[in-house]
């Protein structure tokens, strides 16, 4: 057996850049776990989430937040939500599965995605170059999420405040996605 433990490598090397008030940074500690509701298991999951997190599963496109404010639940699809929280060990799924104690099927998604946070006053102007969704605050307020496509890459958009978005995108194409965001910032500012 090996004598050295494996170290994690962030997909974008912990990228952070600030250009004229637009901050783009890789969130390296974010864990993502998918929660699938068993057929006819909605009530059981509701109860388990209420008990453990003090909230209920969100409908697709909506976001709920745990009572302690530490975990966001993103409604991804009928019967599927993503739990998103800060956690930097590779056992996020195991922990969550234990918490939900058999009321859902869980799959670790942490390493499937890379999280970029884009924030700043003109963030919507930057994102409208690549994002087909209407990000006007009336149409897409804080704590709303959606899955869409930008520059040929799948992305999950989460608005975490008036001027801030977390973008989840496939880990393998993270560099291309970052490039797309960087070019948008360049082109707009």
């Amino acid at each position, binding site marked *: 057996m090996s004598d050295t433990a494996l170290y994690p490598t962030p997909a974008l090397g912990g990228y952070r850049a600030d250009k004229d008030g637009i901050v783009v940074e890789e969130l390296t500690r974010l864990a993502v776990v998918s929660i699938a509701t068993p057929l006819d298991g909605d009530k059981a999951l509701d109860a388990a989430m209420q008990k453990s997190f003090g909230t209920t599963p969100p409908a*697709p*496109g909506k976001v709920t937040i745990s009572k302690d404010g530490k975990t966001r639940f993103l409604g*991804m699809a009928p019967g599927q939500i993503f739990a998103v929280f800060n956690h930097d060990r590779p056992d996020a799924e195991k922990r969550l599965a234990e918490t939900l104690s058999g009321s859902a099927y869980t799959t670790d998604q942490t390493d499937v995605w890379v999280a970029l946070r884009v924030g700043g006053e003109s963030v919507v102007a930057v994102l409208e170059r690549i994002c*087909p969704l209407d990000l006007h605050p009336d149409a897409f307020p804080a704590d709303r999420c959606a899955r*869409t*496509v930008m520059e040929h890459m799948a992305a999950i958009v989460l608005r975490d405040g008036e001027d801030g978005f977390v973008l989840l995108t496939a880990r393998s194409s993270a560099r291309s996605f970052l490039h797309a965001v960087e070019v948008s910032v360049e082109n707009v500012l």
Partner: protein
Amino acid sequence: MIIDHPLLGPRDSAEFVYLGDACLIERPDWQDENALDAFHDYLYLRDNPAGEHRELWFHEQGDRSWLVVTRNTLTHEITKVELARDVARALGRSK
């Protein structure tokens, strides 16, 4: 085009992948006496109307739902969008 997703609201059809006639939900029984003919008609002889068409779209860049979209093939007007799973159940499909 814009597809008004029953759960997510209006989305650009570019987020979706098209399959075709919604009668692809009605897969025949493999043990039927005329199963071969039934499967032939099911797979190859689909509705292709000039007018209202019920068709399957997959929200690939979205929530991964299969939808049944009722759309006019002459005007592209969309009059109904349903979750395919609900349609399938209503047709009696189960396990």
